[in-house]
């Protein structure tokens, strides 16, 4: 495989534009770029970043970019607008990523009853909160939920506008450092598995099968590399993001990077679809299986594809 890649690299490299957010959970994109895996596979890839991986998924509509990396919900929303937006791989599993953080006045989950909690509506934050209610058998009527954007959670907690919030990293870690007495009340481990998918534009992928395959190959190699050499990967991600290695090193171990497609992939898509449907935000019906384009992964690493039927 490596030799084939090298041979092809002799020809003019295929150009691709891909985009994602700035968050260590998208590490395979960064590592593939920084470690030169893309170029070794004969690809000239421009990696753009935006405020979140999900925000960039939208640019797959109409093929403004060729690939993106982001959460389930964004993929479903985009697929509803343009069914060319498909998942080619499931790349990230966030095990201890989202937490409920309480202020000094809230020592544990039980004490949260009757208090105010900040949720970022329409994001993983809300998905997690709903799952937590179900898992812990809580009564939603006992809590006053207010909508707060992730970056403002800490300020709102500090000011006492909210008594707790549910949000993803790095905010929980930050809040504990910044607000006296703040602590994690609950993490998503065992309650819900958050995933990030690699998306491509199906039209483009069908027209450029060769480049697409080499692209997926690069990601698989990058994920393997992260597992094999975590220290070097942290350094590369920190360099790409221009963030302190200490911070990146703290966050990356909370994430599992394995390029695959599994029943879990389908299940997460189904949850997202249900959630969007429930909120009335889905413009047309979407089937989980339609959203997946497994051919590329099957070609590159057949063993990693286990969709169950």
């Amino acid at each position, binding site marked *: 495989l490596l030799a084939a890649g090298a041979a092809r690299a002799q020809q003019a490299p295929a150009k691709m534009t891909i985009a994602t957010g700035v968050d260590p959970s998208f590490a395979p994109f960064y590592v593939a770029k920084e470690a030169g895996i893309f170029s070794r596979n004969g690809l000239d890839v421009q990696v753009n970043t935006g405020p979140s991986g999900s925000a960039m998924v939208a640019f797959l509509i109409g093929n403004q970019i060729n690939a993106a990396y982001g959460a389930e919900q964004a993929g479903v929303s985009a697929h509803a607008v343009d069914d060319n937006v498909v998942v080619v791989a499931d790349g990230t599993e966030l095990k201890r990523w989202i937490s409920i953080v309480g202020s000094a006045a809230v020592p544990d989950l039980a004490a949260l009853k009757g208090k105010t909690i900040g949720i970022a509506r329409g994001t993983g934050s809300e998905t997690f909160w709903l799952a937590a209610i179900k898992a812990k058998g809580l009564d939603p009527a006992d809590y006053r939920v207010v909508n707060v954007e992730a970056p403002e959670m800490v*300020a709102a907690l500090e000011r006492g*506008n909210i008594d707790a919030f549910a949000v993803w990293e790095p905010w929980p870690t930050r809040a504990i450092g910044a607000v006296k007495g703040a602590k994690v009340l609950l993490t998503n481990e065992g309650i819900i598995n958050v995933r990030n998918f690699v998306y491509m534009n199906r039209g483009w992928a069908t027209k450029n099968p060769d480049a697409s395959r080499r692209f997926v190959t690069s990601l698989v190699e990058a994920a393997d590399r992260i597992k094999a050499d975590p220290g070097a990967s942290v350094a590369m991600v920190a360099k790409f993001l221009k963030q302190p290695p200490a911070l990146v090193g703290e966050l990356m171990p909370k994430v599992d990077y394995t390029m695959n497609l599994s029943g879990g992939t389908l299940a997460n898509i189904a949850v997202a679809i249900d959630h969007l449907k429930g909120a009335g935000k889905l*413009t047309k019906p979407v089937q989980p299986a339609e959203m997946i384009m497994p051919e590329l992964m099957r070609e590159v690493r057949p063993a990693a594809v286990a969709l169950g039927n």
Partner: protein
Amino acid sequence: MATLALRAAPAAVSAWRSTLTGAAATLAGFASLFVLWHLASVYLVGSALFPPPLRVLARGIELARDGSLLDNVSVSLGRILAGFAIGSACGVVIGFVLGAVAPARRVLEPYTEFLRFIPATALITVAVIWFGIGESSKIFLIAYTTVFIVIINTAAGVASINRNKVRAALCLGATRPQLFVHVLLPAATPYVLTGMRIAMANSFTTIVAAELVAANDGLGKMLWDARLFMLVDDIFVALICLGFLGFSADRLFRWAILRFARRFSPVM
């Protein structure tokens, strides 16, 4: 905007007729805007992210039917008006001080000339620290983007006052406060009003950043939600609403000026 009369207007044209043709031309302008949009959307771009006007209209009617559009509009409008009013009021006062009191200007200018380049979006966190996640932080952000434009235009207005008008007032025995009330204020009025009209656009556009702060309703919130869920039609409904609200607010403002402040011969 009163356009330059390059040649004298025939006096025979009645005011009525000119109002009518004016309205017709404005309508024609809008019609062409929407036709162009339609053509661009359908023939030129052909992207799912750029819907044609009729689809947006249909979605708008839908949202209007279920009442949510009106709710969002009225909530946002309230915030915009509050922020605009506070920002304009502060801007006029500071602008006059800057324009009329040289030492104050020297000391205050670093504030205004520095702060006006700092985007409201970046101040959201600071606003929450100071004002919490309630209404006041949203209104603060809108006032913030309004105030500097009003300051600059007001100060420019004060600086451009005909020298002899100030001199005459001082010779008539005007004290500082009287000079302000009887000369500076009326003479700078056209500039202040132009400044407010320009600032109005900032008030409207900043609602989007402001409603990023823990908002449960409003056009900005609607926009962010629609973005999050990729409800392209909703995004355009919100944009069109902002455009029309702004346009109407501006017309209302102009009308009020012509009705009540005509003697200060505002230029617009």
